[in-house]
């Protein structure tokens, strides 16, 4: 008891700090409402002066840098062209716990719209739904949070990605052989959805079989090791599909050696710049992707239109996204960017991302 009394000065000062903070909190007004210092745009086009926050899975991620940055023509470029203020923010670990504070801060700072690539399909829902309730439209891109957003911009139809990956490899393998998949994290929603379609498409090729799916966790070292393990476990492996840009690079690093090049074929999702070397030396004949910058650009346009009220989320509604042309809202409030692009040695030099 005496010891407690001795700590009275400390306890007192702590109480003072705590109560000062509480008083300050109670005295100021409640949460901010989205600022609307914008000028009305001409009929059908987005307002200027909107505050839009672009929240990728994490900062420091090269894929999202292309998707978001002004320099590459991504989301921030679109917002700047529209006369709106675009800010990119997120956490540094690609987890929901790391992304949520950034979303909350964006709302607190008076966001008119949010563009989010969801780290987790459900964990963000409470936060995103709270934003929607405050009339802040939420547009997800690249990675969806179904049920908790106004609109989802899908890079390409999930089934198209899954089936085309298998078709590309099948053509290279003459429809025969054992194949394996090097994926990202075991719980990655996108990859799992694509893999589902891959398995269905494989049924069309009875002489091909999927012997294993391994997970590289989007870490170059792990992806390299799981690929190596695959090669040891299945000496008759003929092909690998890696539907993740980190995974395909790691697998190419392993397969690009004299021992495997040309004997185990590789395809998947990769960016042209990073795969140039492997296409020119023959490790990879063809791979796919979409243009991440276009994805971000489209998502930003959609968000601005939603926030301005010039776009309503109804199936069949159309809108124009600047240089990308016009798009239609499809089922489940989803907009498709377009079909995936297949890169080969013939066209890879035309792209710079």
């Amino acid at each position, binding site marked *: 008891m005496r010891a407690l009394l001795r700590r009275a000065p400390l306890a007192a000062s702590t109480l003072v700090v705590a109560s000062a903070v509480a008083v300050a909190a109670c005295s100021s007004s409640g949460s901010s409402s989205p600022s609307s210092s914008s000028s009305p745009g001409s009929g059908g086009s987005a307002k200027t002066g909107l505050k839009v926050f672009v929240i990728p899975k994490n*900062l*420091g*991620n*090269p894929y*999202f*840098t*292309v998707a*978001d*940055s002004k320099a590459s023509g991504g989301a921030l470029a679109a917002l700047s062209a529209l006369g709106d203020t675009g800010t990119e923010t997120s956490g*540094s670990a690609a987890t929901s716990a790391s992304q949520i504070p950034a979303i909350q801060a964006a709302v607190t700072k008076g966001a008119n719209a949010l563009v989010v690539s969801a780290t987790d399909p459900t964990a963000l829902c409470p936060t995103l739904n709270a934003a929607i309730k405050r009339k802040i439209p939420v547009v997800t891109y690249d990675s969806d949070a179904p049920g908790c957003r106004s609109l989802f911009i899908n890079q390409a139809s999930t089934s198209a990605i899954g089936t085309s990956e298998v078709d590309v490899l099948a053509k290279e393998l003459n429809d025969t052989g054992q194949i394996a998949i090097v994926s990202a994290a*075991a719980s990655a929603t996108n990859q799992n959805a694509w893999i589902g379609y891959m398995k269905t498409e494989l049924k069309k090729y009875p002489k091909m079989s999927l012997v*294993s799916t*391994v*997970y590289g966790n989007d*870490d*170059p*070292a792990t992806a*390299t*090791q*799981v690929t*190596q*393990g*695959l*090669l*040891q*476990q299945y*000496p008759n492996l003929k092909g690998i599909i890696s539907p993740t840009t*980190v995974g395909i*690079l*790691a697998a*190419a*690093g392993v397969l690009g*050696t004299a*021992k495997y090049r040309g004997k185990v074929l590789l395809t998947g999702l990769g960016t042209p*710049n*990073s*795969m*140039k*070397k*492997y296409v020119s030396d023959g490790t990879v004949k063809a791979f796919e992707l979409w243009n991440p910058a276009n994805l971000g650009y489209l998502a930003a346009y959609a968000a601005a239109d939603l926030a301005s009220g010039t776009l309503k989320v109804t199936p069949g509604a159309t809108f124009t996204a600047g240089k990308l042309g016009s798009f239609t809202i499809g089922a489940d409030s989803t907009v498709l960017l377009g079909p995936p692009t297949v890169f080969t040695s013939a066209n890879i030099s035309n792209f710079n991302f």
Partner: protein
Amino acid sequence: MTATLAPRREPGSPAPASSRRLADRVFRIREFGIVAVLVVFVAVTASIQSRFLSSTNIQFILVDATIFALLALGETIVVISRNVDLSVGSVLGLSAFLTARLASSTHGLPLPVVFLAGIGIGLLCGVVNGLMVTLGRVPSLVVTLATLYIIRGADVLIVGGGQVVPSSYYPSFLTISKATVGGIPDLAIVVAVVIAGGAYWLRTYRSGRELYAIGSNPDAARLAGIPMGRRVFTAFALSGAIAGVAGVLWASRYGTVDSTAGGSYELQVVAAVVVGGVAIFGGSGSVVGAAIGALLLQTINSALYVLGVSPNWDQAIAGFLLILAIVLDRLISLRLTASLRRRSARRGT
């Protein structure tokens, strides 16, 4: 076990000499123990899946292990002196990115310069750590935890959303990690030589042996006149420089470098060092043991992938084996203390 601990009786031999011989033998026993575990593990895995011992796979394991073995070398030097360096992962990441940039075709700097740059970056970080621990009197756990955050943060700031991809390098950079001589990767040979050099220095040179003294009894070391500040500072500087070199090798090995390189490596390195028989409170252990510990952990990793063990299990297995390793090590050291005590009782010293 006790039979091997008893030294040859030499009439008139001074007690210190024989206990040094005993200590040497103990070191060798600890290393022997880890090697034995490694051999048993490899044998069991190879019997289930013979391709585990294929030359390709051995090359894979050796190259992956060299980076951790290097980090383990640096960490051991620090841990022996009763400190810890948690910033090695972040230093590796920073060095990997900066040197990758230098080695890319836009700059096209020659290989030796790239390595020097890596050493320089790591050395700078190590020096900062060393200064704060020695001059600032701040516990190394706190200092290196803080620099872990700071260096990683600086790395993320510098890298931004960038990355260096294999296409950017001039070709010879990427082949460093792939060149082999008689089926053994060049990298493994070089790193083995470096580790042997490190072991020799720690065992033979005063500056090395004094680290053990500092770790096992700092008060006594101080009273004995050992320049503790200088030794500990050197240990951190070395750890940083080695992490810098490991970063260059990492970039060469994996090709793609972004801001996540080397993340959470520090705990894996400490685990390797502990498995390798280095006491976390300092004062004992060998770099060879730590390197073998790193090799063992990488081998386990590879074995799990080759055997196709469900990826759900490898974390748990890794954790379990680590605990097993330190429990065994503790039992061995208890036996050793008991037998040393018995010997002193017999000798009356």
